[in-house]
């Protein structure tokens, strides 16, 4: 009986240690920040530093942060997307197995596309009235042409343009 009790104590200690270690890792990695809307969280690990820097200089910075365009507006959709992206991104970053330069996946592209249309509904209403429902070749994409509104800014050299 005493022996079993001892084993239980050891197990509990181990479980506590695991919990503590996990908790510390979570804090150290600023895990809580991923539950917020703070754009800085997206650049916690340096992979998205460039996108974050680009967004700071973009036309959308005062009206939309990362989550406004990269997660759906509803609560469930938002946190599902965060969880799915979070898992995939941490796995990729930890193992180092990802495409350079980083590329958006089709599901996330669709999320962003819907976000454009959500806010700019009045403008795009007439354009998209006749498009087919599924995303195929004839699908009109906002970000195919307006890819730089959120981030990815090129600094223009106006040297030769005038001539």
């Amino acid at each position: 009986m005493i022996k079993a009790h001892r084993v239980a104590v050891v197990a509990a200690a181990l479980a506590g240690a695991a919990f503590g270690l996990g908790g510390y890792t979570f804090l150290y990695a600023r895990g809580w920040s991923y539950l917020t809307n703070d754009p800085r969280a997206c650049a916690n690990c340096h992979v998205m530093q460039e996108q974050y820097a680009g967004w700071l200089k973009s036309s959308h910075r005062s009206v939309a942060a990362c989550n406004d365009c990269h997660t759906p507006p509803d609560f469930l959709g938002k946190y599902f997307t965060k969880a799915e992206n979070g898992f995939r991104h941490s796995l990729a970053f930890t193992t180092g197995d990802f495409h350079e330069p980083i590329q958006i996946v089709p599901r996330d592209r669709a999320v962003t596309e819907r976000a454009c249309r959500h806010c700019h509904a009045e403008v795009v209403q007439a354009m998209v009235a006749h498009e087919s429902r599924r995303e195929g070749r004839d699908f009109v994409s906002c970000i195919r042409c307006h890819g730089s509104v959120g981030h990815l800014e090129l600094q223009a050299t106006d040297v030769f343009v005038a001539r």
Partner: protein
Amino acid sequence: MSKRLVVMVALVAAVAAALSTALLVNIFERKQEARNPFYRVVELTDETVDPVVWGKNFPQQYDGYLRTVDQQRTRYGGSEALPVTPSEADPRSFVAQSKLADDPRLKVIWAGYAFSVDYRKKRGHAHMLEDQTYTERQQFKQPGTCLHCHASIYVPYKKLGGGDLIEGFEAMNRKSFQEARQLVTHPISCIDCHDPETMALRVTRPGFLEGIRALKASQGIADYDVNQAATRQEMRSYVCGQCHVEYYFKGPEKRLTYPWAKGIKIEQIYAYYEEAGFTDWTHAETGAPALKAQHPEFELWSQGIHARSGVACADCHMPYVRSGALKISDHHVRSPLLNIANACQTCHKWPEAELLARAETIQERTFKLRSLAMDAVVELISDIKLAKAAGASDEQLEEARQAQRRSQFYVDFIDAENSTGFHAPQEATRIAGEAIDFARRGQLSLRPLNAGKPGKAR
């Protein structure tokens, strides 16, 4: 509580703790990566020519720089390594393939000029000094001016000029190549583009300092100092434009000059040469006052959509690469077609095969038109020869010779340029198209003279 359950809990907790620790360590390492972008282990001064010394502070950039020895061709550019037997006169064991052997029309176009003797395809920066030292063109007494772009020249210029860059430049231009060659050691090195204090980009080549000043003056900007006025993004093209340009040696003092005082487009450059009355050589077979175009990458790029969109040379030829948490520009300078993921996909979200196909489509079209233009020039040359043999006077040949001068400069502008039209596709085809027009007009001017004579097959 069963003993078994307790053991299971312990096991799971142990595994969880181990995984957490592994993750913690990984995160810690990644956070460390983001610190200390470089360690200063040696002091760099404005006299440090040797890239090995710079490489101690910047090992990753240096590593890329060393790889410019690689020889890998694309469909239309570059060259595979061609093994040759080293001799005392030429100790190279690998060279680039001959362009003259590839296209014998070039020998006709350059008859009587050094380039008809030895003209090879391009290879990496690492070879620039040895290739210029051992080219067979050296039998034509090259001036020290060549080293402006074939060696790390900034420090040698300053030493020769007693601390003054421009004075050293002028003194070096007046020397023979062999004499000047003794004063340089390295091909292009770190100091040619970087300020050793701040690592900021800077222009060190007098040719470009003066050329861009003349170009800006033609645009109404007086006393332009590129190192003071250019933005960082502009500098990422200007440092390349120090050498990848059209140029000529002005006057008996062989002063290297970029012909941009009227503008940077081909007709402006041509108008400049006309006004200056400059001629590279007299064509051996026709007597035409001929011009040779030299790798005008900067000029052609400036007319293209990438330049207009603010994309610099370095964006495609030295794209950013991730190295741990750092982003460095890839100092393995090369064709973007050998590095599509980093060079193109940062902006163009298409598969690599698609992007390669797009670029090669542009190059294929340019190449075909360039070949048509070359045919036109060669046929003009044979028509002039025919008329000349029949005793036509200089006056009667004048128009045709001027047409040859212009059309072969135009086609050379596309052929010597290193992107096979990619830097500005429509501009390249316009230039090749005009070359055809000039050549055919030249032939028309000879029609009264050559009428009824059996010419070459048309």
